[in-house]
């Protein structure tokens, strides 16, 4: 047996001889005193050979095997760009619609003969002009305020796209 062990450490043993060594060292009492030092090694091989997965491994595996791939869907660059393009498009369409509407009002107004309503008195004309400018200024301020509110709303919506 000692010669077989030396052969083993030289890397010259066959699989059958290695099995004989394992059997010898696992027999327990029959191991010669001078060979006891090798017993843990061959006992370790035998113990490891018996090591296996837990009984519920197969069941857990088959349950997981047929689960669909759970990939985290993240908004990558392409959809984000598309959303930006779509947002710009929506703004342009909105702006065109607004301008068209304004233009058509202008066209209607152009057909009115304003000369009939023209003020002849300079003082009244001045007062009317001041009144008109005040109204314009008022409307413009209202517009700025509204635009500010709209911007806040847009920022809120924008958060969802970032």
């Amino acid at each position, binding site marked *: 047996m000692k010669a077989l062990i030396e052969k*083993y*450490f*030289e*890397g010259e043993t066959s*699989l059958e001889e*290695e*099995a004989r060594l394992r059997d010898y060292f696992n027999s327990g009492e029959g191991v010669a005193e001078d060979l006891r*030092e*090798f017993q*843990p*090694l061959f*006992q*370790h*091989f035998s*113990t*490891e*050979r*018996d*090591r*296996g*997965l*837990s009984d519920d*491994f*197969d069941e*857990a*595996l*088959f349950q*997981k*095997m047929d689960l669909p*791939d759970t990939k985290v869907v993240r908004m990558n660059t392409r959809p984000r760009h598309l959303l930006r393009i779509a947002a710009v498009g929506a703004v342009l369409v909105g702006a065109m619609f607004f301008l068209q509407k304004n233009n058509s009002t202008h066209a209607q107004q152009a057909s009115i003969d304003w000369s009939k309503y023209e003020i002849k008195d300079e003082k009244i004309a001045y007062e009317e002009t001041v009144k008109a400018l005040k109204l314009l200024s008022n409307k413009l301020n209202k517009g700025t305020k509204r635009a500010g509110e709209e911007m806040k709303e847009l920022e809120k919506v924008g958060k969802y796209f970032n």
Partner: protein
Amino acid sequence: MNHHEFKTLILPFKNRLFRFAIGIVGQTAEAEDVVQEVFIKLWKNRQQIAQISNVEAWCITATKNLSIDKLRSKHQRMVPMAAGFDLHDHSATPYEETVTHDVFDQVRNLMGRLPEKQRDIMQLRDIEGLSYQEIAETLNVPMDQVKVYLFRARKAVREGMRHEV
């Protein structure tokens, strides 16, 4: 391939893969996760199984790679890994555990500390009982090199045992 074919053709490798993973990751729970991941990966690509010439070798390579990834992801280094081994044999009786635990740990640690190729070859030969030819094919190493690595591995373990006893 269906479940039944998978069960008869692939599943029989499971314990060998498990033991191989333990040799690298050290922890039984993690080794079990590795084997499960390897099988799921193979199942998801079952259309390509026919193109794999040696499915067992493929599984062993996948197990090895995934085990190394697991180790790396835990920022564990390969060398001191043996110290963290949790390979208590729960099936043994308390008496057997007391007697064998220390010496088995010693052998495991010695094997765990071997260079990668030596450890893999010693594992496949002495624990899995593979022939030199099978080891060469599985690890893609020339057969004469397998013998050299095995000789060095056994020699290192023998010397390690002498020092530590």
